[in-house]
């Protein structure tokens, strides 16, 4: 099974180079005996990936649980003899509320209360392999599979009831955790039906049966699963865990990236009782009984590092354009050509060219990386907050030269990630310290470590040129993105002649996924430029977009946002007031955002006063949590739009702490209105990422409207407006 094939099921959800890493073996760890032992009696349904199922079918041997367990199981569901429904998925919960959405999906098809369903997530010993929780794929990919499994379980329960009552199954219905015979009005609870059973079934993971128009649990607000544990402080994040005999770890960091350890004097630290010092190549760390003892030991280490000269933020954008590289596959350069640029240019009356830049920014999840590692009988167990439990398992197996089945990674619901927790640095470090100390070790990164030693959203340079006629029809479009990424690089507008390229570059800083990837950067450049083109031919920015746009769903969200915002009737009642609109398509979602700003060119102050976002992600699964995600995306987007930027010099981060790196706070937040365009006729797309892409260009366009100045760098106002 090739991971690429699986993700291409949903063309707009293609992971970008920063997300797709080489996958480990797709073996499903527990063998059949182990599995039955884990699950106990009752009913088990396992989802088999569609392609694998097809291969087995064509091979003529239908494989159920009576034979070996299928190799390619994507999720499974178990109804125990006590009636408890347990669902196993490799997805993880990082605040995007997928635990709740997936619970709703199972409840819907099983016709059972969400309270009766328990989700086991992100545990490499218990859950089937999953590439990771990213790319907004839990809803479009995992949810339908779980629904299909729940559906199959429901049918099995109906069979059991028919057997029990010795009647035909037709007519029996599943409602509220019971099977009911409408003729006799007798009912039997699922728990009673599964008592004494040992039934198992493998089903192809294909489309679910209940259409969105008939949903009873999905499509409705559902409070956060385990919400009570979060508001009472009872929930244990990875950073809150303790295991008996656990030590606390600290890692010695060099003052520059790529530095090599020249010498280490650990005599003083070694003399401290109960302190373990680990040196392994350039890795130096300590473990001690309390965090304070570990901090003291770390401070007592004398190390000399050698580092080489490295680029600084000042020359970043020149560097990126000068240092393009060729890669392969997703990592490689991509070209998109339509029509003839010569023809498009010849037909045009106006032309406008501009360069946009985007800074590196930090995810800054409020929970920095943390891990607890424990070695037992040669087997390694790690608890950590990551979006890729199986990826981290592979990292650990590789580092410690272990078979993957000797490593277990468990992911407690995590304190934020936003694409920033795909890697297992803290897990590897904790495991190294633990192995040396012969005791379990907890390692929690400091905020400075999280800022410095994790990875950033890629910086980038985007060159855009547009050609258009007097009537506002865009005839040619050229777009070059250097380094920031290819997500949403294609224009959704109907432009007959296009030349679009992504140019990978050598990045001076470690970079990776970030909520919506480069879609934010590409939308910022494209939608700012479209705004400029509209002004060039003196057209209303919305009218100009609609003139060049055929896609019905994108048009609909533009119109919905504009209507709610009062776009047509907008008028400036004070100096410095400005209005902007922007939108686009990404990962199966259609978004448009209108923004009102108040900008004062004199003092340089800029404030987002009001934002309206209309979003269509197909059939809505949980409207309240969806609104929450859209509001949150807008708020997070404020930081990247206006003031977040990583400053670096010669291998060091200069502003890697909250007192020096400004994040959006209460006073930065405008009033936000969300318009959900619920398309029950369309498949549900993921929604945690795409709603972030409209804010920055809408705000930039509003600043232009207010001041007449076009800001072409993200962040637009790191130290106030310079207009």
């Amino acid at each position: 099974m090739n991971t690429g094939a699986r993700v291409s099921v949903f063309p707009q959800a293609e992971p970008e180079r920063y997300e797709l890493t080489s996958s480990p073996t797709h073996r499903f760890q527990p063998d059949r005996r182990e599995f039955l032992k884990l699950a106990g009696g009752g009913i088990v349904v396992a989802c088999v990936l569609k392609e694998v199922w097809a291969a087995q079918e064509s091979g003529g041997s239908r494989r159920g649980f009576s034979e070996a367990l299928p190799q390619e199981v994507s999720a499974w569901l178990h109804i125990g003899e006590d009636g408890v429904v347990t669902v196993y998925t490799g997805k993880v919960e990082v605040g995007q509320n997928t635990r709740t959405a997936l619970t709703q999906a199972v409840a819907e098809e099983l016709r059972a209360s969400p309270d009766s369903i328990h989700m086991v997530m992100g545990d490499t010993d218990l859950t089937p392999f999953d590439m990771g929780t990213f790319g907004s794929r839990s809803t479009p990919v995992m949810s339908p599979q779980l629904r299909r499994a729940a559906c199959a379980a429901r049918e099995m329960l109906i069979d059991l009831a028919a057997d029990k009552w010795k009647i035909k199954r037709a007519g029996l219905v599943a409602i509220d955790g019971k099977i009911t015979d409408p003729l006799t009005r007798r009912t039997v609870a699922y728990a009673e039906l599964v008592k004494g059973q040992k039934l198992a079934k493998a089903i192809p993971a294909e489309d679910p049966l209940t259409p969105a128009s008939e949903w009873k649990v999905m499509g409705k607000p559902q409070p956060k699963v385990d919400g009570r544990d979060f508001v009472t402080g009872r929930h244990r994040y990875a950073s809150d865990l303790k295991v008996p005999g656990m030590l606390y770890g600290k890692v010695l960091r060099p003052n520059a990236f790529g530095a090599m350890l020249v010498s280490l004097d650990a005599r003083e630290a070694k003399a401290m009782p109960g302190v373990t010092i680990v040196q392994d190549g350039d890795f130096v760390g300590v473990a001690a009984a309390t965090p304070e003892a570990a901090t003291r030991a770390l401070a007592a280490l004398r190390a000399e590092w050698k580092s080489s000269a490295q680029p600084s933020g000042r020359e970043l954008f020149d560097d990126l354009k000068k240092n393009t590289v060729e890669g392969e596959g997703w990592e490689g350069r991509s070209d998109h050509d339509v029509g003839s640029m010569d023809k498009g240019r010849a037909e045009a009356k106006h032309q406008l060219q501009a360069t946009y830049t985007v800074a590196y920014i930090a995810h800054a999840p409020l929970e920095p990386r943390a891990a607890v590692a424990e070695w037992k009988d040669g087997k390694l167990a790690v608890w950590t907050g990551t979006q890729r439990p199986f990826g981290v398992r592979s990292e650990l197996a590789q580092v410690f030269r272990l078979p993957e089945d000797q490593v277990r990674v468990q992911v407690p619901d995590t304190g934020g990630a936003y694409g920033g927790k795909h890697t297992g640095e803290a897990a590897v470090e904790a495991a190294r310290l633990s192995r040396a100390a012969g005791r379990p070790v907890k390692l929690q990164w400091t905020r400075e470590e999280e800022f410095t030693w994790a990875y950033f959203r890629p910086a980038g340079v985007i060159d855009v040129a547009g050609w258009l006629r007097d009537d506002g029809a865009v005839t040619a479009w050229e777009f070059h993105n250097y380094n920031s990424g290819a997500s949403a690089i294609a224009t959704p507008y109907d432009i007959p002649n296009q030349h679009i390229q992504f140019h990978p570059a050598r990045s001076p800083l470690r970079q990776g996924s970030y909520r919506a990837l480069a879609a934010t950067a590409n939308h910022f450049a494209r939608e700012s430029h479209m705004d400029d083109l509209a002004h060039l031919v003196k057209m209303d920015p919305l009218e100009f977009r609609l003139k060049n746009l055929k896609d019905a769903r994108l048009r609909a969200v533009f119109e919905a946002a504009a209507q709610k915002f009062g776009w047509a009737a907008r008028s400036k009642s004070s100096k410095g007031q400005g209005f902007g609109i922007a939108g686009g398509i990404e990962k199966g979602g259609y978004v448009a955002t209108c923004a009102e700003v108040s900008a004062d060119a004199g003092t340089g102050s800029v404030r987002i006063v009001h934002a309206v976002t209309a979003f269509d992600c197909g059939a809505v699964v949980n409207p309240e949590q969806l609104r929450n995600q859209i509001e949150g995306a807008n708020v997070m987007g404020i930081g990247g739009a206006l003031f977040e930027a990583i400053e670096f010099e010669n291998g060091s981060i200069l502003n890697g702490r909250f007192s020096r790196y400004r994040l959006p706070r209460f006073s930065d937040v405008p009033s936000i209105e969300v318009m959900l365009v619920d398309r029950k006729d369309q498949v549900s797309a993921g929604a945690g990422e795409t709603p972030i892409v409209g804010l920055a260009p809408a705000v930039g366009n509003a600043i232009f409207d207010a001041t007449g100045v076009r800001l072409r760098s993200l962040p637009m106002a790191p130290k106030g407006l310079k207009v």
Partner: protein
Amino acid sequence: MKSFGSVVPLRGTGGFPHSSRRSRASPSDRCGMTRVIELQVNGSTYRVDVDAETSLLSVLRDHLDLTGAKYGCGEGQCGACTVLIGGLPRRSCITRVGVVGDKPITTIEGLSPGGGLHPLQRAFLDADALQCGYCTSGMILTAAALLETTPHPTEREIAHFMEGNICRCGTYLRIIAAIRQAAKMLKEARS
């Protein structure tokens, strides 16, 4: 290994299968100025054997296993570590345990001693005022202090008072709504 920590059994901190309820320290902890410090936490008295310079956050989390207060930045900038000391919201990450004295400390675990939910906790759930939840303890305790002095805050007053608390998931508007809702619930409870 010497076992020490609570003189009163801890309540309500269970959770993960491997979480231990008792803290330990080794002799290594005893270098430097060490002394036994008595703390009033959530209505109980605890004795901890730590340096007075240790952060209150570390004492609560690592010694008393009260992990509701979170580490977010270590410099008092994000509010995830907020606890109430004598009813006032304080950044436990930059509060040395030695200066607390006998002032009562309230952590999120002790906000609603009866085991039910405090109106703020209820309102945060009702308003879906959290996503990842890591900031939630600090938000709720800061808001509890606000409602003590300002029982009916305006949105602007809430935003101003809460400015030091970061929610990276961006649920600020919901938090404001939840605090206003809780204010109403508290008013109804009083009348």
